[in-house]
């Protein structure tokens, strides 16, 4: 079983576009969606709604910076301080190119920092690159089914 990708995004349009972009990359991984930092944390630590999910960390977390409740940087900080999660790849997928945001993210050990491009074509390319690099050893096992939210 391929590890899933955890997508943390609160804006419905961005979420939709990200999912569409991921769909077009033909990645085999399941995409799990969390709409804020708290939900993502619950998923990662198997609490609340996710208490019953099967064990195992996602392949990569695609994390928006500005999120309700717990924001992206805070969540990153939590992840990096949790022994079971400290090696989890985290990619910031954000609208902000601010020096301070970039610097803070890298200081907290983010694995990549991607500014969402305006052009959908460029966005597709970015997502594809991310997926290839972080999510998978590319080819899904034969017969696996892609789940869509």
């Amino acid at each position, binding site marked *: 079983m391929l590890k899933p990708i955890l997508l943390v995004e609160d*804006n419905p349009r*961005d979420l939709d*576009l990200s999912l569409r972009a991921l769909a077009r990359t033909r990645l085999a991984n399941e995409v799990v969606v969390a709409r804020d930092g708290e939900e993502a944390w619950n998923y990662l630590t198997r609490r609340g709604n996710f208490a019953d999910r099967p064990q195992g960390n996602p392949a990569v977390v695609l994390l928006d910076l500005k999120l309700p409740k717990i924001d992206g940087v805070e969540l990153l900080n939590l992840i990096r301080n949790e022994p079971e999660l400290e090696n989890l790849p985290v990619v910031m997928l954000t609208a902000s*190119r601010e*020096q301070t945001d970039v610097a803070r993210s890298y200081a907290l050990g983010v694995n990549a920092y991607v500014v969402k491009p*305006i*052009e*959908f074509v460029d*966005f597709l390319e970015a997502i594809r690159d991310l997926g290839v690099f972080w999510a998978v050893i590319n080819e899904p096992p034969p017969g696996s089914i892609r789940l869509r939210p």
Partner: protein
Amino acid sequence: MVREKTGGIRVSDTPMADTSVDYSACEHEPIHLAGSIQPHGFLLAVDEATGRVAQASENLGAMIGREVGAVLGQTLDEVLGAEWACRVRCAAKDPQFALGAVLIDRWTARAAGEQQVFALLGHRFGGHLIVEGECLGEEDAALPVDVNHQLQALLGQVEAARGVEELLGLVAKEVRRISGFDRALVYRFDGDWHGRVIAEDRNDVLPSYLHLHFPASDVPKQARELYRLNRLRLIANADYEPVRLCGLPGAQTRPLDLSLSTLRSVSPVHREYMRNMGTGASFSISLIRGGELWGLISCHHREPRTVPFGLRVSCGLLAQVLSLQLAVREQAEGLAQRMRLQAILTPMVAAMARHERLVEGVEACRDDLLRIVGADGAVVIEDGRVVRYGTTPTEEQIRALAGWLNRQGDDDVLAIESLSQVFPEAQAYTPVASGLLALSVSRLRHSWVLWFRREVVETVTWSGAPEKAVSVDAEGARRLHPRKSFDQWKEIVRGRSLPWQQAEVDTAREFRVAVVDIVLRGAEKLAQLTEELTRTNRELENFSYTVSHDLRAPFRHIRSYAELLKVDKGELLDDEGREFLGYVLSGAQYAGRLVDNILGFSRMGRVTLMITTVALDELLPEVVRQVKIDPPSRNVEWVISPLPRVQADQTLLFRVLQNLLENAVKFTRDREVTRIEVWAEETATEHVVHVRDNGVGFDERYKDKLFGMFQRLHAWEEFEGTGIGLASVRRIVARHGGNAWAASKLGESATFSFSLPITPSPTNPIYA
């Protein structure tokens, strides 16, 4: 000073040269340790530690009938007898004794069967009680000892004298009357210690020296010091034979310090000087003010002549009265002048106070500007501006002068009477500006107020040439000779203005306070404005950042969904629908780019510069490689000269070059062959990089607008663009402490240039 020959008398470039051999040699003669006295009296020096005579004049035998050999080692009682010794000791208790010779009384001695009356004088100096006896003639011996009553009537006259000249004349006349000399001069030292005769009284025996100038070497420095200490000096006979002082045989006798002695033998050079001048006797009274020697009353007699001590003291008192009177009068005059100037200054300051700029403040009081210090011209220099009033040098000359002033010391006020002497370039304009009164308003900003005074050509009549001669006598010793000629010669002094009076300098100083106030107020206001501007700017930046940031997502969504619509559902639309969709896409694309550019621009103001050494030779090809040529088939010729290594933030510098090259490519789009040149220059402080294209150029009238935010000089259809690129260029360059500018020939070419300091001084981020 420029000296000219006049009247064919003589000419000299340096009549007062301090470096002449004679002058310096003369100055080193230890005249206070003469080791001898004049022969019209005797001297006993009692060592106060032992109470015994340590030194005495060789002529004791002839004077008082006691041989010097016998007297040395004796007590005062043994020499003068108990009664007189007691009187001397008694007198010695007077503190006056330490300041100069005091008349003890008349004293009679018998020598060679003759009776001789002496004025017995005493003083204390260098551990010795020094007793001097001055021979009195028969007439003098008959005079009352105390002659001060003679002065009483005179003092009344002195006070009544109306002008300084009358006062001086009166004193000269009285001193001559009391002393009975042929000529009495009042002699005043000038700044460089040359002297000037300012009053005279004489009979027809000796020539007039009134208004003549005497070189400083005539009264050398140590002689002036002795005049200061010992205010009365009589040389009774220029042809005298000095009388040696003898010490105890075998004892280590140091030369006796005769600084306060009345009989001290003077330098042989001086006696020769007197003989050359044709005077047989001289009597000098020091004029002292505030402890400083400012002049002499100098009396001359063709024949030898003595003046009894009491009369000399009277003359000394008269001299003191003169000094005091002059001081009082000068102070009163200074005060009156100060009040007159104050009356002008007060309304001036009030008029200035309403202004915030120095030039404006001064302009407001221009009518009084020259009057306030009695100048012929004035200049205000502020922030490189030169405003002239009245008669002044040219603006160019003033700029050079200001440059020189900026390099001078820290004095706030400089008063110069002969500018060309300290600043030779000023010789070009001595007629209009020989005198300079300079107020430094702000050293930092090189602001000055300058006043000029024109040249006043003065004719100085010197009494003879000042040179002394050196001769070698029979034993091979060098000997000095004073000048022989007292013939007059005239000198024209050029390049000087009237002197700046103390009251004028003081007023200028007060004026400066008012002026500095204006400047400070201006600076304060500027600081306040800057602060407000910074705050407004920050708010504006914050606003545009927030708006741009929040707009970015919706534009991205529009763009993305329009794209999806076009790709996935395009076949559902007809041609018109697809055309509309195309407009939506390009509109959203433009809006998105605009937002990104604004965010980038805003970010550039805030990022911290990472200054490193950047090799432009390596960076530029990379920029060229990334510049999109649209369409790729265009014929673009790059002409890139060798470029320097600069100190800059590489990422930001990349953006600068990218913007400039993209612009160059964009605005040459319709050229058959595009030619883009890049080259650099180096000045003392900056690297300047130029990018020239052969494109459409721009109207130079609008070149200042080019670098403004959202400024476009071309229609949308002609050249696309968000109008942020050049604003970014200027902002980045400014953050490095440099500048950006442009020039163009409309329709032919455009050159964009930017400078980077060789030593970078990065400015703080806007949101520091």
